């Protein structure tokens, strides 16, 4: 015990002389173990919490929905389902998209919304139960009260008791705020590709089913039925049975059956948890590698400086393990400090991340805590093992040498390293300006390790920069594609299909401002229908807009092909990504599955062959276009459900919005500018996170360079003192060190840049493509980012000698030059 204490103290003395290097390495280890310890369990925690939340609030097993605009008679539909065995619960709902005015006082809140009529009878709902976060749930027979979705309410700081108004004038009181499993994450009603932005732009309004039916005049009608299956039933078989029975009972109506587990928000949340974990682990591993390289470097140096002592020890016959003990203890001490800092750092990460998750994707229930003991243990083990291992290698190498070998080479000149390569080569400049290169070649192993460390950090930096740039680039393309004509335009979505000459449509043309000025300068009735694109086995969901070929306002901007087809088939225009995913090229024929209007409120799904005639420039996969003249196959030609409008000069979007709100039949009013606002909101969030990662990457590059410089100075103390004796000034020596770091920094940065670019590309191509299906990500690192990364990487690495100049100043020339015998 006493002996160990002695060794520890001795090792401690070794450490103290190099405390800045030790601190730098320990800090990198702390970052890595901190991330690992603090966030290693986030996947487990999130998934357990989601499982619990979905389970507690009874996410539906199956959902029956209808083609847009269709309705089912409630009691008949329930009667059909009653005859099917294996259903544990059945829940009819009326779901209506609408506009909601939640304005309070000065604050105008006019947003898209969705009314969900829920069956509160008999203690319902059984499925998709509402979890109340604030206020209360309405009583079964209460009229005129609703529950609003929590995230929306929080976003606008609403309070229970606040009044909201539905389009058409219905005034309601929000008695509480709550959430149902379907809307743990709110996605906007339209396919915008910005799925996370739903909460502020989408108001979910829960009300009693009879009241909803009364408001819309759909007595005893529903358009959605949720189903919970009994334990142990064969899902596939029962799905088939439900589909057949319903289709047989209501042959005029397109019936869709979807699974709760395929709910897009749910799928996304689970995938996010897994992918975030992979990303975090990868970052932690990068840090650990960097820290290990640094620890290896330092240990190598320590061993070198103790080489003579080790040699003497050997000559005295001390066992090798005893000689190895002291430098190994230093590794242990580094690990100890790394952990000492890493564990609390992990705790801080846990808190920060937990808060972030609760803020951004709140769940009604959380399972256990984010603190995950196994991850803490693994992090602790890695944090100890890696620096120990890194110390182990040089130590073993040193004690395996013959005693004589170790004792020699003290006064004799050291090896020139790889400088023999330069023998006879005529280098430009004088001996002084060649010194940086020669110093690098002299200890190639250390130089390589330094380069590797810098490269690792820069690769990390590049990856994040690339993410950011690709993301920004994609958004930019989206912006360009939207703005290339009529940036002021508004898209008004109607609640149903109206004949193009319907008075309500005409009325839009005549909207006037308070002082009698026309609000709309141009107006065009379009058509918009959801559907599926199919080619062989591949199928993609699409939002298809039917546009007037001679539109004065906007037509898609084409990358290839033409706007109008040859005439044999209706001509469709797809996004690049959709065409690629379907394996199509311009001229190919594919199948479009689309609604076909049979009766006023009944639609069925039909398939029509269409020809790909053009590729538009939006990165959003699901956007497709087709000329209105070709729309006959939908049975909806001469009708409209989407009106594209150019406002008169000087008219604000909000003015039109406010004016239209009390007009019946209008679902949403979207301005291109609103979309752009969404993008900016999203950007701020993303950019923030990625900037932090970039800074961490730079910090690590800096620490690694600092360490290496500092070790180099220790290593070359005698040479530096000789230069000083010959009158070479400190500044010149610092310059030489800067030159050396400049070379290392450049090589490291360039290597890291390529490595980062490669990893980015792999990740984007393999992972992102499947992760973000709805968009075409344009993999991209902007020249500015490259220059910035290179400059920052190289500059930071290069200036470390300036910080180390103190060390040079402190060199005591006489005692460094003195021969100690």
């Amino acid at each position, binding site marked *: 015990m006493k002996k160990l204490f002695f060794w520890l103290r001795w090792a401690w003395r070794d450490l103290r002389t190099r405390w800045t290097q030790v601190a730098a390495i320990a800090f990198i280890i702390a970052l890595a173990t901190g991330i690992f310890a603090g966030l290693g369990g986030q996947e487990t925690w999130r998934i357990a919490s989601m499982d619990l939340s979905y389970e507690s609030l009874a996410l539906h097993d199956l959902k029956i929905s209808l083609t847009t605009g269709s309705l089912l008679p409630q009691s008949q539909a329930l009667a059909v389902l009653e005859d099917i065995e294996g259903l544990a619960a059945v829940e009819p709902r009326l779901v209506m998209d609408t506009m909601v005015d939640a304005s309070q006082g000065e604050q105008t809140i006019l947003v898209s919304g969705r009314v969900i009529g829920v069956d509160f009878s008999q203690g319902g709902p059984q499925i998709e139960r509402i979890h109340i976060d604030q206020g209360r749930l309405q009583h079964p027979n209460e009229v005129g009260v609703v529950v609003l979705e929590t995230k929306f309410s929080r976003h606008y700081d609403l309070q229970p008791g606040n009044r909201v108004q539905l389009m058409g004038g219905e005034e309601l009181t929000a008695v509480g705020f709550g959430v149902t499993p379907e809307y743990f994450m709110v996605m906007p009603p339209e396919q915008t590709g910005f799925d996370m932005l739903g909460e502020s732009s989408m108001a979910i309004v829960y009300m009693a089913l009879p009241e909803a039916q009364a408001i819309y005049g759909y007595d005893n009608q529903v358009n959605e039925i949720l189903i919970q299956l009994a334990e142990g039933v064969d899902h596939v078989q029962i799905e088939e049975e439900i589909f057949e029975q319903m289709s047989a009972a209501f042959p005029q109506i397109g019936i869709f059956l979807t699974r709760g587990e395929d709910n897009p928000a749910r799928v996304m949340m689970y995938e996010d948890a897994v992918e975030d974990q992979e990303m975090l682990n990868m970052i932690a591993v990068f840090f650990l590698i960097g820290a290990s390289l640094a620890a290896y470097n330092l240990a190598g140096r320590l061993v070198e400086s103790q080489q003579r002592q080790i040699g003497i020890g050997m000559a005295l016959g001390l066992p090798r393990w005893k000689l190895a003990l002291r430098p190994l203890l230093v590794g242990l001490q580094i690990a100890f400090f790394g952990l000492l800092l890493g564990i609390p750092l992990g705790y801080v990460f846990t808190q920060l991340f937990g808060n972030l998750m609760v803020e951004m994707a709140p769940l009604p229930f959380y399972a256990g805590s984010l603190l995950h003991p196994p991850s803490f243990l693994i992090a602790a083990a890695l944090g100890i093992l890696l620096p120990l291992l890194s110390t182990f290698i040089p130590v073993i190498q040193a004690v395996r040498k013959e005693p004589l070998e170790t004792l020699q080479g003290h006064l004799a*000149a050291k090896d*020139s390293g790889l400088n023999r390569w330069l*023998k006879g080569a005529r280098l430009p400049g004088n001996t002084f300006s060649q010194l940086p290169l020669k110093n690098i070649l002299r200890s190639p192993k250390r130089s390589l390790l330094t380069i590797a460390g810098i490269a690792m950090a820069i690769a990390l930096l590049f990856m994040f920069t690339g993410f950011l740039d690709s993301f920004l680039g994609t958004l930019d393309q989206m912006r360009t594609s939207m703005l290339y004509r009529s940036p002021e335009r508004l898209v008004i979505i109607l609640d149903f299909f109206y004949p193009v000459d319907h008075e309500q449509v005409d009325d839009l043309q005549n909207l006037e401002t308070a002082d009698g000025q026309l609000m709309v300068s141009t107006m065009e009735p379009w058509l918009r229908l959801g559907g599926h694109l199919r080619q062989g086995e591949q199928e993609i969901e699409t939002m298809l807009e039917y546009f007037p070929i001679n539109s004065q306002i906007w037509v898609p901007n084409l990358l290839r092909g033409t706007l109008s087809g040859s005439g044999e088939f209706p001509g469709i225009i797809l996004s690049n990504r959709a065409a690629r995913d379907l394996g199509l090229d311009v001229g190919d024929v594919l199948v479009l599955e689309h609604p076909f209007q049979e009766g006023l409120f009944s639609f069925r799904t039909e398939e029509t062959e269409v020809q790909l005639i053009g590729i538009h420039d939006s990165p959003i996969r699901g956007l497709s276009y087709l000329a209105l003249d070709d729309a006959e196959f939908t049975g909806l030609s001469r009708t409209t459900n989407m009106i594209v409008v150019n406002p008169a000069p000087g008219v604000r979007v909000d003015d039109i919005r406010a004016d239209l709100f009390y007009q019946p039949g209008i679902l949403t009013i979207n301005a291109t500018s609103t979309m752009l606002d969404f993008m900016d909101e999203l950007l701020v969030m993303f950019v923030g996170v990625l900037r932090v990662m970039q800074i961490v990457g730079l910090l690590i590059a800096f620490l690694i360079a600092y360490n290496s410089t500092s070790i180099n100075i220790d290593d070359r103390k005698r040479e530096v003192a000789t230069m*000083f004796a*010959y*009158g*070479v000034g400190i500044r010149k020596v610092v310059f030489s060190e800067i030159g050396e770091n400049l070379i290392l920094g450049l090589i490291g940065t360039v290597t890291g840049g390529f490595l980062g670019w490669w990893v980015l590309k792999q990740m984007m191509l393999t992972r992102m493509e499947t992760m973000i299906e709805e968009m075409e990500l344009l993999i991209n690192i902007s020249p500015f980012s490259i220059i910035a990364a290179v400059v920052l990487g190289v500059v930071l690495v290069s200036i470390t000698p300036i910080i180390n100049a103190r060390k040079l100043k402190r060199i005591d020339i006489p005692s460094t030059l003195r021969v100690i015998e």
Partner: protein
Amino acid sequence: MIKLDNVTKSYEMGPVSVNALLGVTLGIERGEFVVVLGPSGSGKTTLLNMIGGLDTPTSGSVTVSHRQLTSSGSIDKFAFRRETIGFIFQSFNLFPSLTALENVRFAADMKGISDALAVAKQCLDDVGLSQRIDHFPHELSGGEQQRVAIARALATGNPVLLADEPTGELDFRTGIQILKLLESQIKADKTVLVVTHNREISRVADRVVELSSGEIVSDGDPKGGRADISDLHW
């Protein structure tokens, strides 16, 4: 050329103070070849470092080449060393990543000599090493390394050469050669100071300054008479 006036250097070691030099007064003329003799710990290195501007006296004054080097003096010691001194060390202290030629050229480059390469080659030729100019220090013997070190000091063109135990690491024969080489530099009007703890070696000089416990105990002809280098036994 070199003047020390009542120079004392003391180190405070807790309550006791160690005098490395005590009241040393010494004058050396330009073109002189002087050996500083004394046992280990007598203050030889300290004396040399004073003259070379690497160390400052606790009291007294040091003047080299009309420049006052005392602690109060505000001259740039770096510039002084660059322009006045050529150091030769016991452990050679060559730059391991530079070849012999480059090591020598380094000194010429540092002085801003325009024809540095030719000067370096000439200096290596002067020390008899023109055959080995492209070797790295670790590829040279001790004597050869010390010759490179001397060539490096010569390449500065500086008037004062300070050599601290230049033969300490070398065998007898090689040591003699190095001493001869140093002595021959007075022909080029250099002032040469060589430190040694070997009395026999000191006999090659016209003048021997003997130190003991930081004080000069004798200054003048070598004891036992001046000897020709070939007569030495050590």
